[in-house]
Every structure is written in structure tokens, then in C-alpha cells.
């Protein structure tokens, strides 16, 4: 039986009201600082400008010559993303194995907490991963365009460096999030760390690793398009050219291609997860 005096008021109401007020108070300066004013969008001449820009998108360009060019640019984008990811994996997997606590021998007899000196050895690797991913890929791309010239190489290197940092960090955390007992049992039966990884950790981590890797590959495709705008090749460079020439139809065709690529990545991810998880 509830006390009628208590039942009249929701005890959580006050804190909810406070949270709402706090959220508004925090968002308001943000709106001011970002100078967001949606009214500008519908202001007479602005709307017309956007309208003409968008109306040029129809019909999408589909001449045989352009489609050949588009096909080349798409292949280049896919190649940049894939080669970049492969290089990133080559760096990320060893780094993740070094950085993860899941394969610690000293943690074996300490209830999963590694000794402090073992943690000290992991910090440089974690620091390297932080350094790699803290600089945005577009900055790397600008740097490499100056170093190796215009073209896909700059994009590949930029993706490889940034994504090695992201993949390494997330892999290390995936290894730590799976059930640690199988790996610990193997280490306790004399297996080496790598053996314990392949027999104890990997069977549990495969699904999540594949899903994250394919998602990152999709991000790499997007990133390689953005980096194309600074001259790193692929669809982005082509899109930059078409936009400068106000060829809306070509931009529309490229956006459609882009949609297909993301759809493809999504299907691939679903297929792999269905097979391995």
C-alpha cells in the first residue's frame, strides 16, 4: 500500500527537470558559437541557388565515356581503401597483441590484473596507437600529397596510418572483452601467448573483429573520397573536378555509385557475420 502523500509526486521529477534545464543551458552556447541559423536556408535567393544547384543533379550523367571514367575512379577508390586497410592491419594486429592485457602471463596468478611493470611495457604501444589516430587522415593526406605528389599513394598512406591507430585500439579492447578463462587455461597449461591467442581468444573475437573491420573499410571508402578533394585520387578527385565545372549530373552519378559501395560493404559485413558469428 503506497502512502498517498508519496504517491502524489514522482520523486524523480525534480532531477529530470534539472537535467533538462542543464542540457538546454549547455546547448545554447553551442548554438551561438556555431552560428547555426536555419532561417538562412529558406531565405529567398539562397533557396533559389540551392535549387538550381540541386536541379542540375538530374538526370545523372550516363554517357559511355563518363561511365568508363567513373568505373576507373571507383576501382581506384576501392583500391585505396583496401590497400590502406591492409597496411593498417599489418600494423594494428601486432600492436593490438602487444597492447592487450588479455595475454598477460603475470596476470595469470593475479586474478587477471597484470603486474605494474608489465603494464609499463604496454604503455608505449598504447601511446603509439593514440598518436597514430589522433591526427585526422585529411592532415596526413595533405602532408603526403606534398611528399609523394598527387595521386592514390598519398591516400593509401594516410588511411594506413590513421586506421592502424583505430584498429589497434579497438582490437586490443575486443581481445580484453571476450571471456578470459579459455586463454588463461591454455597459458596455465604451458601454451605460449600467441598459441593462447589463436586457440583461446580468436575463436571468440572473430565475429566482432570482422564486423568492425568491414565497417572501418566502409569508412575508409568514405575517407578516400574526402581525401580525393585534396588530390589523393579516386572518386573524390573526380567529384571535385565535376563540382568545379558545375556538372551536377556527374556528381549525382558519383553519389549513386557511392551509395552502391556502402550498400556493398553492408552486405559483405552481414554475410561475414552470418558465417562467423
Amino acid at each position: 500500500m503506497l502512502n498517498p502523500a508519496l504517491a502524489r509526486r514522482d520523486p524523480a521529477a525534480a532531477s529530470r527537470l534539472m537535467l533538462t534545464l542543464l542540457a538546454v543551458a549547455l546547448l545554447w552556447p553551442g548554438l551561438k558559437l556555431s552560428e547555426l541559423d536555419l532561417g538562412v536556408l529558406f531565405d529567398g535567393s539562397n533557396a533559389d541557388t540551392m535549387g538550381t544547384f540541386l536541379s542540375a543533379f538530374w538526370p545523372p550523367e550516363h554517357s559511355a565515356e563518363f561511365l568508363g571514367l567513373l568505373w576507373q575512379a571507383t576501382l581506384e577508390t576501392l583500391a585505396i581503401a583496401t590497400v590502406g586497410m591492409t597496411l593498417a592491419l599489418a600494423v594494428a594486429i601486432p600492436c593490438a597483441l602487444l597492447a592487450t592485457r588479455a595475454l598477460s602471463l603475470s596476470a595469470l596468478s593475479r586474478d587477471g590484473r597484470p603486474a605494474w611493470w608489465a603494464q609499463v611495457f604496454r604503455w608505449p604501444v598504447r601511446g603509439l596507437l593514440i598518436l597514430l589516430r589522433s591526427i585526422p587522415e585529411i592532415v596526413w593526406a595533405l602532408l603526403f600529397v606534398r611528399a609523394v605528389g598527387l595521386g592514390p599513394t598519398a591516400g593509401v598512406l594516410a588511411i594506413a596510418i590513421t586506421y592502424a591507430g583505430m584498429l589497434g585500439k579497438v582490437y586490443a579492447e575486443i581481445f580484453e572483452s571476450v571471456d578470459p578463462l579459455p586463454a588463461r587455461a591454455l597459458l596455465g597449461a604451458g601454451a605460449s601467448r600467441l598459441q593462447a591467442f589463436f586457440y583461446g581468444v580468436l575463436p571468440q573475437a572473430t565475429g566482432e573483429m570482422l564486423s568492425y573491420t568491414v565497417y572501418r573499410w566502409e569508412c575508409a571508402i568514405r575517407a578516400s573520397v574526402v581525401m580525393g578533394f585534396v588530390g589523393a585520387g579516386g572518386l573524390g578527385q573526380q567529384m571535385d573536378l565535376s563540382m568545379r565545372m558545375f556538372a551536377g549530373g556527374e556528381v549525382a552519378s558519383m553519389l549513386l555509385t557511392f551509395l552502391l559501395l556502402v550498400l556493398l560493404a553492408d552486405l559483405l559485413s552481414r554475410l561475414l557475420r552470418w558465417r562467423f558469428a
Partner: protein
Amino acid sequence: MGHTHAGGQSALREIDLQVAQGERVAIIGPSGAGKTTLLRLLATALKPDLGELEVLGRRPWTLAAGARQRLRADIGLIHQAPPLPPRQRVVTAVLAGQLGHWSLPKSLLSLIYPLDIQGAADALGRLDLAEKLYMRCDQLSGGQLQRVGITRVLYQSPQLILADEPVSAMDPVLASHTLGVLTREAERRNATLLASLHAVELALEHFPRIVGVRDGRILFDKPAPEVGPDELAALYANEQLEHVPTLPATPTPQLNIPRC
């Protein structure tokens, strides 16, 4: 095994235990007595706070890490809930027992194609699991998983077998049969076997030497035929449970509270 001597853990106090090579010892006692801690200490999965521990003639905590790993390859610990990855196949889980003796390239090759299918099938056959060879671990029942865990340690063929409640998820007939297989294998290989057991009658039936553990101390340590009902009563006597007042049975209404 020379002698084992560990103490000072909050779970274990002044344990002084010596087990000779080839002996078969059952450890019995109430829940929370320290049976698992004792086995984990012997398996070098825990480092004793105090005292000395000697396993297979060597002191594991004075060895370098590499030498300790080689020593661990000769110690097999059977877990109550076998820690097997759910998606791993039984054949791989059993072959993993030999990882301490395999090189890394060999163990990687075995992941692509199982290298010793016959060996794994033979080991599984001893526990009547040969037909489960290619099934995944998450398709097995608790009792079958325990038998896979035992098979892995038999396949590892260690000199010291430690078993923590190895048959707790099996029915009495199967439990007795499985323990029989385990003790016969240990005897055949002249391996030392220490097993903690909840079921006293199984311990008395299969093990020549019984160690009773209570409150982190060894209460008795004698040959199985000499263990009398008085000692068992003292081992399992539970003062706290007897004094728990029986609560009046108030029918609490089953509320269905959604989590929010």
C-alpha cells in the same frame, strides 16, 4: 612429486601436504573450505603468499617465466566449468591440450587442418564422446563439456593431473564411470592425480588416499578404508546452518517489475 607446502592464504592456513609421484588423492570438504584454492596453488595459477611450494621437484615461483611455462606443460588442471570457447570445435579444444609441447607453426597448421585427429578421437573415445569430434562446444551439455575438459587434459598427458570437481555436472552412474577412466589413466601413466570432490562415496570408491579440508586447514589425511563416519560428520558439520532460524513462510506476491 616431492612435497607441497603452502600456507598463509586467507583461504588456506598452514597447509602441509606431501604427495608422491603416482599417488591418487581425493580432496573432500564443505563448500568454501579451500579445495579449489589448494588445486589452483598446485597448478601454479595462484602464487602462495607464505610458505613454499614444490611441484614435480621444482619450485615454480623461483623459476624464470619461460621455465615456469615449460613446467606448466606438465601440469594439467581440469576445471569444474571447462573454459572452452563456445564456437570452437571439440577436436580443436582437445588438441589444444598439447599446445605446451607444440611449436607455434604446428599449432597454427592444426587450426587449418587438425593434425592429430586419431589422437583426439582415441582420447574422446575413452569417455564415449568419439561421435562429438566435429561438434561445436556450445552444442554440448554441461556433463559432455566436463568430459571434453577431462579429455583435453588426458590428451595433454601431464605428470600431475589436478581435477576441480571434475564430475559435478554428471549423473551418478556416469560420474563414477568417468572417475574410473580418469584414475585408471593416471595409474597407467604413473601420473599423480589430485581431485576435489563433493560426493564422498565417489572419493572413497575411487581414491586410495583421502584428504579432508575444512576452513582452509587439513582436518584429516588418511587411506580411504580408515576414514570413518565420525570424521566425515566432523568435516561436514555446519554450526551456522543449524542455528539459522526458520523464517515464517510469507507468500511474497510475484511482482512483475519491468526494468527501467
